[in-house]
Every structure is written in C-alpha cells, then in structure tokens.
C-alpha cells in the first residue's frame, strides 16, 4: 500500500509530525506496518507499506493516520463526510435479494454531470500513490477509496434499464462484459448488481462496460455497499480476478462506512463542479450485525506477554485506536472494537493491540522453565546410521522435487503405473506425485553427466506417494524410501590404483554394510520382475522374507535412451519396514580364549548354482562351532570343465570352552562337503 506522507498528515492533529521521517518509518515497522521502500517526490515522501491480510483498515490514508496518531499520541482528524442535501428529486429503486451476501447497499444520484479531467491537485494525489487518473467522477471514487478505504462504484444511470438496482445472485447463463473488456459467464454463486433485466456489475469486484461512465454521461448512480468477504472472495477466485475493491471486501470492509463514503464522494464532486447531488440518500441495511463487546483482563495480558501493564496505558491506547471502553474496573474492561476492525474477535486480539503499540522491543527476553513431556516422540534413528554409511561409501545426498509425470515414470517402469494427480498443477512437469525416487535421481545423474561429472554416487531419502487400490485418492499411502544411483570407477580417488568400473558387487557390498550397521541381514535374490534393470544383474532385497526393494544395473535399453555412456547401478529400498524394526542394541558376547580354526574347502560346481543358496545350506548344517563362512575365491576359466566354476570357501570353527581337535574340524568339513555334494552336485577339489 502506497501512502503519501503529505496526504496522511491531513488527518493528523497537529499535522506536523513530532518525529523525523526516519523515526516514523521505524515506528511503523515496529507497530506491524513495515515500510518496504520509500520514495521522495518533491516535498512529499511515498511510503510503500506491507499490510498483512488482517488489516484491511490500513489499506487507506485515514487508517494509517489512525495508527500513526495512536503511536505518536496525536489525534485523528477525519475528512468532512456529513450529509449533503440533494437539490433535485430523483427516483431510484434499490432492492437487495440476498442480504446474506450484501448486508448493506447505499446509493445516490448525481445529476448534471460534466465528465472532464480532474483538477491538478487530485490528479497529483492519485499519481503520487500510483493510481492513474481517468476522469473527475472515477477519480473521486478512487480518491475516496485511498482516503477512507471504501470501494465505491459509479454507474451511468441512463444505461440502467428500468432505472433501478437489484442486488441478487446471477442466474445461470447470464453474462457480463467487465470493465477490463472480458465477457464473463456468471453462475448462481456470484453476487451481481443488476438493473431491471441483467447484471451490470460484479458486486464488489468490477463494473460492466455497458454502464461505464463516459463523456456522454449526464446522470450518475453512486454505489457504496458492504459485501460479505466470503462471497466476494469465492467469486473473485472463480473468475481469477483481483481488484482494489475485491481486495478490500475480501479482507473485510467497514459495514458502518458506506454512507460516510458516499457523502464524502458527493462533497468532492460538488467541490469539483462535476455534478449535483440529487434525490434522497438511499441506504438499505437489512443485514446489520451487533458485535459483542470483549472482556479484557489485566491478568490475561500478563499471562500471555509476561509483563504487567498500567490500566491508564491500556485504556488510553485502546481509545486512540478507536476502541470504546464500555466499562472499566480496576482489573478488567469491557471493550467495543471499532467497526473497521473486523480482525478483533477475542481478548488476545486486544492483548496484541496493546503490546504492538507498547513495543515488542520493550518486552524482556526470558527462557521458559523446562516442562518435560511425558514420553519421547518416535524418531527414526536408523536414518542417520544409513546416512553415515552412505556418505562413508562416497554417496552424496540429493534432494529432488516430489513431483513427476506419468510419462517420466512410465519411461522408467516400462509401463504406466497409477499415480496421484495434483488437481491444480502449475506446470505439466509437476502434474503428479512420484511413486519412485528413481525418476528424479536419474535426471540428477544425467544432469551431472552433462556437466562433465563422471564420478557420481547419489542417494536420496524421501517420500513417495502410492495410490490406494480402491481408486479413491484419499486412500493414498506415503512411504519413506532410500534411493541410490552410482556410476564411475570403484576406487576413483586412488590415482595409482587400477581403475575398475563399479560393478554390482560394489553396490551390494555397500548395501550389506549399511544393513549390517542396523543389525539387519538382507537377502539378495535374483529378480526377474524389474523391467528397468539388466535382467542378469538385478536382485530383489528382502528382510525376514519381506520384500523391501531392489538393486541392480540399469537396463541397457534405458541406458541408451538416457544416452548414458557409463554403466549405472541403482537401488531403491522401502525404509518403512526398516524404521519399524527395533533399533539394534549391541550385546557383549564373551570372547573365546580358544583360537578359531580356519579351513579352506575348494570344489567344482555348476555355474548355474547360486552362491546365496549354497551359503544358506551350509549355514543350516547342524554345527554350533561353525562361526563364519567366507567366499575367498571364485575361478572360472578354460582349465575347468565346460559350465563349471571353482569355489573356495573359508570356514571358521570355534568353541567358546575348548580348543577344537583336528579330528572334529575334519569331521565338520566333511559334513559340509557331503552336503554340497548331495545338494549341489559339488565335486571336491584339492
């Protein structure tokens, strides 16, 4: 809101400010009217005030003057707005069909109108605060708007069919060309100002072109009404319109000001010799609401603010701000807020008025005594353990938008999957909510490649949004996910080491180590259902037989379509089941004084056999002294029979109470080998 300091001073008594301009700016900021910028214009200064949505009363010069007066302890001098006696009679019929939306409608005729340019002082005033002058009549309505804050509208009376005004909801099918030249289709939720047959204005938002003031206008109907915020807001939103008038009505105008504003406008018109006020003043007020006064306790101010206030200060300040002290007792008051303060509803609103003008700066800073909650809130401690592992393994954290598109995700999944659509997306790229972190991560990866970064390991921890199976959007599920993408060499930082390209086992090992930190053993099993993964390099992960995600190499088909030249590995895990597990607490296990015995066993086996199954089988052998199973060599080559691989597995045996004998260990190894022979057709090798 642009405020001219010279204009503002007109309403102050005395009109000279007792403080410097700089101090005034500071004071305005400190009472909640922050000055965004100032601009010198001749001997005037224009302040651009930021007005919060609860203070429509400050969207005009008189309102700001009231605040300044209260802060500087001056008095306010409102402009002359007493009744103007009409010279001629004129007949206007006004009726309100929807008093719920329009509780009050005042109007008056102005005859013998001479539409012309406004005098210099008026034009300058308007221009100073950024309002373009149009003609004397329109300028007067704008002047009153910027002075008192109340939107008026001027109709060319002779364009109103039947010479009457009907305030009613529009009918389906009715249209109106508004002053911005757009022809608008109205519906039955929109309040319209109509003449005998059709809408001539959108109530509280904008007039229509047909009844617009022109140089040919001889008689004007001035409208000064009070419209309910919800009605104006809904219509303006529906039509995508926002005007000076709608902005104020939406936030709450003063229902007691319409007649004053009308009188003020008539006085100005006569002062400018632009026309003659005529006929009786029409004031229909079917929707008057009595506002209840509010009880204010001195103790409540202390309870909320932590400071005690002198009764004299409280009363004095509220009075300066236009509040009426209905009754006053030593410890409490009954206060009637002014009609222009629709935002004042409860006792604490009054508390704010007092402390706002007292100054937040003057309130001491204390520290609340610690009230300890009954129980600790749930917090996924696993998350930071995972992040520690990820960063230690070279992964940096990415943050992507949660938005995606069906096209983008279908490219990844290889099929279209149900997604949750946003009803009012801003762009096509933001039309849906992601169901996987991969679309974002692969985009980030591509961006890195484009920037020339070829060593990329990224992870993201974030939510995906899974639609319910019922088809109802409300049945969605939010799920915490960990996603990672990696491409490059496995030991990039070691400049003298061999530069092996990352492979699946690097990624798998990292994942295993993260899980191990959480006390989780995850199973990796060959997977087939993931179309976006290389069919030979893809694994499904499960914890306690519950699937939690997948890992693998990006399918060459996708690699090509993304134009990647490097191999890309990716994984996504559902963290919900991970977070649901108890946080692992380590337990001390006594250290055996008896040394572990290690034995390596080598054998040939069909290539098609899975090591994972083999290891599980060895584990299941009934041997409590078997402590560890490690693969230490895997050889496949021309020296072996076709279709065979040679494995060497190191078995470690240990007993907590005694040294194991050679014989026992031999027996254990024999039983393991026997099992491998019978279940996996392994051939022993020495």
């Amino acid at each position, binding site marked *: 809101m642009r405020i001219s300091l010279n204009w503002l001073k007109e309403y102050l008594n005395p009109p000279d400010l007792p403080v410097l301009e700089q101090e005034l700016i500071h004071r305005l900021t400190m009472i909640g009217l922050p000055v965004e910028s100032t601009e010198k214009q001749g001997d005037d200064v224009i302040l651009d005030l930021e007005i*919060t949505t*609860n203070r429509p009363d400050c969207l005009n010069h008189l309102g700001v003057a009231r605040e300044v007066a209260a802060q500087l302890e001056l008095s306010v001098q409102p402009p002359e707005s007493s009744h103007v006696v009409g010279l001629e009679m004129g007949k206007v019929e006004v009726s309100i069909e929807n008093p719920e939306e329009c509780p009050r409608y005042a109007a008056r005729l102005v005859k013998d109108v001479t539409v012309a340019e406004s005098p210099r002082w008026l034009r300058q005033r308007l221009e100073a605060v950024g309002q373009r002058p149009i003609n004397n009549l329109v300028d007067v309505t704008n002047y009153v708007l910027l002075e008192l804050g109340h939107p008026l509208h001027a109709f060319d009376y002779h364009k109103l069919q039947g010479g009457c005004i009907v305030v009613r909801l529009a009918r389906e099918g009715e249209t109106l060309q508004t002053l911005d030249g757009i022809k608008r289709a109205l519906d039955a939720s929109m309040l319209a100002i109509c003449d005998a047959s059709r809408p001539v204005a959108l109530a509280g938002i904008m007039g229509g072109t047909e009844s617009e003031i022109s140089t040919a206008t001889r008689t004007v109907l001035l409208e000064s009404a009070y419209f309910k915020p919800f009605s104006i807001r809904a219509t303006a939103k529906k039509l995508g319109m926002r005007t000076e008038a709608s902005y104020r009505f939406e936030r709450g105008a003063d229902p007691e000001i319409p007649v004053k504003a009308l009188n003020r406008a008539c006085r100005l018109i006569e002062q400018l010799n632009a026309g003659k006020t005529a006929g009786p003043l029409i004031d229909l007020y079917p929707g008057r609401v009595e506002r209840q006064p509010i009880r204010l306790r001195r103790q409540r101010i202390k309870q909320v603010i*932590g400071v005690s206030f002198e009764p004299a200060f409280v009363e004095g300040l509220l009075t300066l701000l236009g509040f009426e002290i209905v009754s006053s007792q030593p410890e409490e008051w009954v206060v009637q807020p002014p009609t222009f303060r629709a935002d004042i509803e*409860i006792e604490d609103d009054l508390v704010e008025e007092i402390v706002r003008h007292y100054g937040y700066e003057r309130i001491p800073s204390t520290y609340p005594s*610690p009230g300890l909650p009954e129980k600790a809130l749930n917090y996924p401690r696993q998350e930071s353990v995972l992040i520690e592992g990820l960063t230690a393994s070279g992964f940096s*954290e990415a943050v*992507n938008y949660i938005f995606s598109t069906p096209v983008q995700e279908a490219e990844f999944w290889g099929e279209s999957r149900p997604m949750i659509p946003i009803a009012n997306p801003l762009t096509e790229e933001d039309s849906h909510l992601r169901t996987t972190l991969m679309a974002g991560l692969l985009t980030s990866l591509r*961006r890195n490649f484009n920037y020339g970064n070829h060593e990329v390991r990224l992870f993201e921890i974030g939510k995906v949004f899974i639609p319910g199976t019922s088809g109802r959007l409300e049945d*969605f599920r939010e799920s915490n996910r960990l996603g990672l993408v990696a491409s490059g060499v496995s030991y990039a930082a070691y400049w003298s080491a061999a530069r092996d390209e990352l492979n699946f086992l690097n990624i798998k090992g990292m994942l295993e180590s993260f899980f191990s930190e959480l006390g989780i053993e995850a199973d990796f099993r060959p997977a087939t259902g993931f179309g976006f993964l290389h069919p030979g390099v893809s694994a499904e992960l499960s914890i306690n037989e519950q699937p939690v995600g997948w890992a693998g190499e990006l399918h060459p088909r996708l690699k090509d379509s993304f134009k990647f030249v490097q191999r890309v590995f990716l994984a996504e895990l559902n963290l919900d089941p991970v977070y649901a597990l108890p946080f692992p607490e380590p337990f001390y296990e006594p250290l055996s004084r008896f040394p572990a015995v290690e034995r390596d066993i080598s054998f040939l086996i069909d290539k098609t056999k899975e090591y994972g199954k083999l290891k599980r089988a060895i584990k299941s052998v009934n041997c409590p002294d078997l402590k560890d199973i490690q693969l230490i060599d895997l050889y496949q080559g021309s020296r072996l029979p076709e279709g065979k691989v040679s494995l060497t597995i190191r078995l470690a045996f240990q007993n907590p109470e005694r040294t194991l004998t050679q014989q026992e260990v031999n027996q254990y190894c024999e039983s393991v080998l026997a099992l491998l022979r019978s279940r996996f057709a392994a051939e022993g090798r020495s």
Partner: protein
Amino acid sequence: MKKGRAFFISSLFLPVRLSPLKMTTAMLENAHPLWEQFRQELQSVSSLGQWTQLRDRYLSRQRGLITLEVKKLGRLSAEERPSAGQRLNVLKVQVEKALENHYQLLKEQERFRQLQSERIDVTLPGYYPRRGRIHPLRRIQREMEEIFMRMGFQVALGPELEWDYYNFEALNMPPGHPARDTQDTLYITENLLLRTHTSPVQIRTMQQQPPPVRIVVPGKVFRRDAVDATHSPMFHQMEGLVVDAGITFADLKGTLEAFLKELFSPQTRVRFQPSYFPFVEPGAEVVISCIFCSGTGCRVCKQNGWIEVMGAGMVHPKVLQKVGYDPETYTGFAWGMGIDRIAMLKYQIDDLRIFFENDVRFLSQF
C-alpha cells in the same frame, strides 16, 4: 630440540665412515703377526657377505687361521705355551671385537641404503578416501535441530500429503480465510493437499499428547509457486512449538534469541516486529541484523540492515481449543522458518534452484 634432531639424522641417515681400529701402544708391541694381517683385510670388507667370509677365514672351527694357530700350540714347549696361548687369546678376543664392531657398521650402512631406496615423494597426492556429503539442507537442518535439542526440544515429523483440516482449519484458517491466498496450495482433492507449512504437525502432536509440548518439526512444504531464484514449489521449513502453563511472549523472545545467536553468531541482534499469522496472537516477524554487513546495509539485506528469518507468535487460543487444551491454563508460542532460506544466508547461496539440481560439484562443497 634441534640438537636431538641433528643427532637423529646423523645416526640414521649419514653414512658411517670406516675408521681403523685404535690400538694402544702396549697392544701393538705385543701383537700377534696375524693381527696386522687381519686389520688390513678387515678394512676392505664393505658388505655383509665379505664380512662372513672374513669371519670364517679367521674363526672357522676347522680351518680358521686363528683356530689353526691354536692347534699349533701343542707343538710348543711347556715354557713357551702359556705366553703364546695368552697372546692367541688376546688376538681372538680382539678379532671378535673388531668383527662385531664392523658388523654394526655394515648393518647401519645397509639400513641406510634400504631407507634411501624406500624414500618416496611425500608431496604426491594422498589416497583420499572418497566420502560423500549430506545435502546442505540436511546439514543446516541438523545444526538447527541440535541447537533446539540442547534446549530440550524433541523432533516431530508428519505427513507431506495433508488434510485441509490440519493444514488450515485447525490452524484458525477456515475455508474462505484470506490468509489461504498467501499460501497458494497444490490440491489433490478438495480436502487433501500438499502441506503448505509444517504447522499441521503442531496440531497432530498436541492431539496426541497433553502439555507440556516442546517440539521442532522439520520437513518439506509445498506451494503453487513457479520456480525462480527465490521461489520453488517445494522447500523446507522448521516449525517450533512450546506449550505449557506460564509460557509468555517474553519466553518466545528469549528462546528464539538464544537460538538465532547460536545459529548465526553471539553478536547477532534479533528484533521482533508485529505481524500476522492466523494461528498466533500476538504475531511477530523475527528479523536479525544482517549477517553480511552487521546492519550497515548491503545487497543481501536490501540496504536496510535487517533480514527476515522467521514468523512467530503466541499460539492462538482457538488453535489450543481445537486440540482440547484449555487456553485459560495453557499458553504457548510457535514459530516457523525456511530451512532453505537459512541455508542460503549461512552458505551465501544466491539461487534456490541449485539445491535441487544435485550437481556433485555443488554437493561436495558441504
């Protein structure tokens, strides 16, 4: 210190010169003729191999020159035998001693050569472990969480897809409230939306527990905003809430001042200006003295010396009522701040978009 280091260097790294054995005059007069011969030969021994050969030449049990001399003693007369024997004994001890000394010298020489050969260029690049970094937004979020946790706060989390009730209505923003306009919302259905602030978690937490409450709520929030250097349809907020009997606006000031001084610097000045948020009353805008120019005016603070960092206020009685807290008994304060904005200020980032590009060159800076 200097002396010690000089000693260290000379003892380990300087080649040790072979010096002739020092002989007393008495020893020389009485010396066995083999002694002079041995000394000559010892002087030319420069490797451990030669040293072994020399030792065997003189001391070998079968054919050592000294061994042979000892064997000859038997042929001497009884009178000559003791003095000749003693002379040989002296010779043997002297040779052994000289060999031992020489061995030490050779060992040191060898170690010196070995150390020389193992020398590397310590200015070569180290094998730097390849660590990843957490996102700057998580970094700043953790820093903020930690400050609050030291002040007795707990971290609370909540859903990103939220119901209108929690996002607006329970926060004193009924349908049609003009403040809804300032938070342009992305809707899924009429009642389901992407939360526009982390404040709904206030409501969820209060519904689940009786006072006292002391929480901070970090998380993603969403607005229907086009992307530019300072706007994004997705950003991050940290909300805070304290509710108990006896909580005042003065406590709000004290708590947030302590936090901001800890986060930025003890010299930071904190100012509270009246402002409006529907879920608090009284409401405040919290500004700090510009961390770049300390308040003298610069580009970041748009020349006014102050930077807005958060909105705050006393929890609106209607909000307390909605969750079943009696506003006559309990009061509270709440605040909200943009994590992205704080990160931009602290790390001097001038474009919000870079947070979501995930360029590893950017990420590796944090």
